[in-house]
């Protein structure tokens, strides 16, 4: 019988209940969705749903709190690491993480990011680097690649005018307050399984009082990049990984 296979004992993968049924507002194929799902799966597998507090950013992920069945606090643009600092210090027994885009983390929130990391706050920073301001219509971000076209650099980023792509994750490695820094992606099954392990480690670190964990997800914004989701993943592998190579940068 064809339908015999659809039995609970044969189920090998399905949506975790930590991600609720509210349809996510992200464009079809957006990396934000995959990372949301991974965060929910890790929180589920670690059994820490009641003990986790997320800080949502301003950017496309501004509504992140709608999708997770867990506590969340919205922060002003770029201020998530400062809000996370307060929450973690008030509730040291909680797993506290921020979820931030490149505009949020590496432009308006540069100071909050660097100082939270420098203080070694025992939080996890999840950094979605899609090299663009997705939410506001695809403007140039600090992380936009050299020559990459955006709505505010329609002829491509010119480093003589716009400066260089800011590799903020590399900068954070230098700070004594950081203990685990890794760069991951979610473009295929293998990278997703790897990224999930990194996320688990990042969450576990929150309880070890050894400093800040930062996980950068090199990501796509297929709408802002004006490509299909599949093409955006290919473009990311070809172009983004050169500027932002994957792998662990610090683990102490």
């Amino acid at each position, binding site marked *: 019988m064809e339908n*015999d*296979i*659809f*039995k609970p004992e*044969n*189920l*090998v*993968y*399905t*949506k*975790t209940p930590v*991600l609720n*049924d509210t*349809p*996510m507002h*992200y*464009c*079809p*194929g*957006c*990396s*934000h*969705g*995959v990372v949301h*799902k991974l965060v929910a799966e890790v929180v589920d597998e670690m059994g820490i749903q009641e003990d986790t507090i997320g800080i949502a950013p301003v950017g496309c992920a501004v509504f992140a709190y709608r999708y997770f069945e867990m506590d969340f606090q919205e922060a002003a643009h770029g201020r998530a690491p400062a809000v996370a600092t307060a929450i973690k210090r008030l509730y040291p027994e909680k797993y506290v993480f921020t979820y931030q885009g490149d505009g949020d983390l590496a432009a308006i929130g540069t100071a909050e990011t660097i100082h939270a990391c420098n203080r070694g706050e025992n939080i996890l920073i999840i950094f979605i680097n899609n090299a663009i301001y997705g939410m506001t219509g695809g403007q140039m971000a600090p992380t936009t690649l050299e020559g990459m076209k955006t709505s505010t650099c329609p002829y491509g980023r010119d480093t003589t005018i716009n400066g260089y792509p800011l590799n903020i994750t590399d900068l954070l490695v230098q700070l004594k307050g950081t203990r685990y820094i890794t760069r991951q992606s*979610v*473009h*295929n*099954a293998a990278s*997703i*399984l790897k990224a999930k392990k990194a996320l688990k480690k990042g969450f576990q670190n929150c309880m070890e009082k050894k400093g800040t964990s930062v996980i950068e997800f090199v990501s796509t914004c297929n709408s802002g990049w004006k490509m*299909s*989701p*599949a093409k955006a*993943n290919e473009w990311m592998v070809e172009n983004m990984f050169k500027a932002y190579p994957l792998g662990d940068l610090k683990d102490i």
Partner: protein
Amino acid sequence: MGTKIKGAILVNEERCKGCGLCVVACPHDVLTLSKKVNAKGYNFATMEHPDACVGCASCGYVCPDACISVYRTKVESSN
């Protein structure tokens, strides 16, 4: 008689946004986007070659909207 791995998926058709990432992720070319659309107007993912599915869950992992449930079992094969 040997045993063979058999897989199958269920797609949450109303939640699916038709991004097509599962279609390119499937190593066995099982999936396609349906000619039909859901209430939001998206061509949702569907199995075009269900017999080729091995239940590897690649499609499920890459789905940004957690629309895919994957099932896997062993079946007796006659060859």
